[in-house]
């Protein structure tokens, strides 16, 4: 009895979570106007890919997709390198002021990103980097959260491994590249997914620095598109499907790492 109640709540909640997505995909496969009828249709009469054709042939979505891929991969690769070096230094080196420096960095997490946006925009503007991929990649090249996550992970790795390599005469950089990075692989994957998804889904900053149509990322392009295609439900749903597919695929294939990362950040934070 109790079990049946439990399952029905869980199943209803699951349906509520999924219905919007099912309708999104379904509407994206309908002909023009077919999602704007009463009563609403949950499935298309006849499946058509005309909305996707429209997106690809006339609305430049390939370009937006490409932009999103470049900035998301760019930020992920660079920030992984920068954050892992810093996280390694905090975890395995002792130097003056180390603890205080780390605490100071952690305290920065309370400052909302919006505070930095105006001067950062001006800085990039004077450097001529507005409407370039660098406008997103440069400010994203490190995060305190990333440094924190890697430090926590590396703290658990025994110092003796590193000492042994040192006795064998390996240089600091060699140890970092061929010993620490492979050991840190799980947390690097976790952080890579976090960073990739956050950059892919980010909206406010790309909206500010990508003002030229050809440089829009997918979210910016979508938000812009809805202005002109307010009534074109089917087209907008197709655009939304294209936008979320990559993050959903990344998540589904690597979800264990992602969920572990949230737990790590949550329990120890």
């Amino acid at each position, binding site marked *: 009895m109790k079990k049946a109640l*439990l*399952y029905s*709540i*869980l199943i209803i*909640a*699951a349906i509520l*979570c*999924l*219905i*919007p*997505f099912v*309708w*999104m995909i379904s509407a994206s496969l309908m002909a023009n106007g077919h*999602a*704007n009828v009463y009563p*609403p249709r949950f499935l298309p009469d006849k499946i058509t890919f005309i909305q996707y054709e429209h997106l690809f042939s006339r609305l430049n979505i390939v370009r937006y997709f490409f932009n999103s891929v470049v900035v998301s991969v760019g930020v992920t690769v660079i920030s992984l*390198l*920068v954050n892992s*070096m*810093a996280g390694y230094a905090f975890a395995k080196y002792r*130097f003056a002021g180390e603890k205080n420096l780390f605490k100071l*960095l952690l305290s920065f997490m*309370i*400052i*909302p990103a*919006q*505070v*930095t*946006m*105006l*001067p*950062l*925009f001006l*800085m990039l503007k004077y450097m001529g980097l507005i409407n370039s991929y660098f406008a997103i990649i*440069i400010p994203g*090249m*490190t995060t305190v959260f990333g*440094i924190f996550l890697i430090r926590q992970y590396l703290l658990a790795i025994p110092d003796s491994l590193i000492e042994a390599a040192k006795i064998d005469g390996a240089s*600091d950089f060699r140890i*970092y590249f061929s010993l620490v990075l492979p050991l840190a692989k799980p947390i690097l994957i976790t952080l890579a997914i976090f960073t990739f998804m956050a950059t*892919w*889904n980010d909206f*406010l900053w790309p909206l*500010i620095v990508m003002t030229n149509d050809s440089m829009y990322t997918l*979210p910016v392009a979508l*938000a812009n598109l*809805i202005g002109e295609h307010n009534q074109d439900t089917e087209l*907008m*749903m197709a*655009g*939304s499907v294209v*936008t*979320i597919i990559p*993050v*959903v695929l990344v998540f*589904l294939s690597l*979800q264990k790492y992602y969920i572990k990362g*949230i737990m790590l950040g*949550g*329990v120890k934070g």
Partner: protein
Amino acid sequence: MDKRNKISAAYLFLSPALLAIFIFFLIPVLAALLMSFTDFDIYSLGNLGYARFIGLQNYIEIFKDPLFWQSLKNTLYFVVAGGPLSIAVSLTAALLLSSKLVKYKGFFRLVYFMPVVTTLVAVSILWKFIYNPRFGILNYLLGFIGVHPIDWLGNPQWALPAIILMAVWKNFGYNMIIFIAGLQNIPEDLYEAANLEGASEWNKFKNITLPMLAPTTLFVCIITMIGYFQLFAEPYVMTQGGPLNSTLSIVLYMYREGFMWWNMGYSAALAFILFIIILIVSLIQLRVQRETNL
């Protein structure tokens, strides 16, 4: 000799991150503070020399600005109603999924987590259509239980609650995962001891689960609140801050002043006010936590 090498290696490893944080975070924060004391506007954008120091003028004007109070009110509404609601849903889902009676936990967790990973702008557009007063599936489904069509996003009374509902749907999976991790850390023997004394489910929840979960809950409260204070994409996409400014958030107002009208001094002051509010509320939460623990 060896020790010095070791230290210089540490600084080498740290320098890219520290430099980036210094140049692209710390300097902008300080510059924003300075900027908030100037009349930096579209003319200063072309020539920095046109910006003048005007002391606290921006802050004084903000406190006299009805749109600021409106955006503050809306944002607080979103934080105070949406935050606890989404945390409550997260905790409930975590408790249900931690029950020993449930199988396929991984599946349910995955499904509940789906909305979290999807792009906020895409989801906002999706919900804009779901909320459509004539063709939307929400009004259609509510029709079955006798609810008359509601103009969700077109009615100043409903627009913000509609955004809150969507935010809860989108976000609860994230905190759910953190709660599940917190629940796993509670030692099993506490419950076993309570069982021996014949404690009810509710008593176990109140006297074991909640107190043991307090650090997790505090963490969840703080990150949720910080996130909810930064409400932007939902109103930008779904309502443009309307109707009648009923969904204008602080960040949306800041964005408009700063990046649409280029009143960057004013906008910087708005950003600092947001920061100070977030700081104060976080400190209050930490304080409350410390006092209730004693």
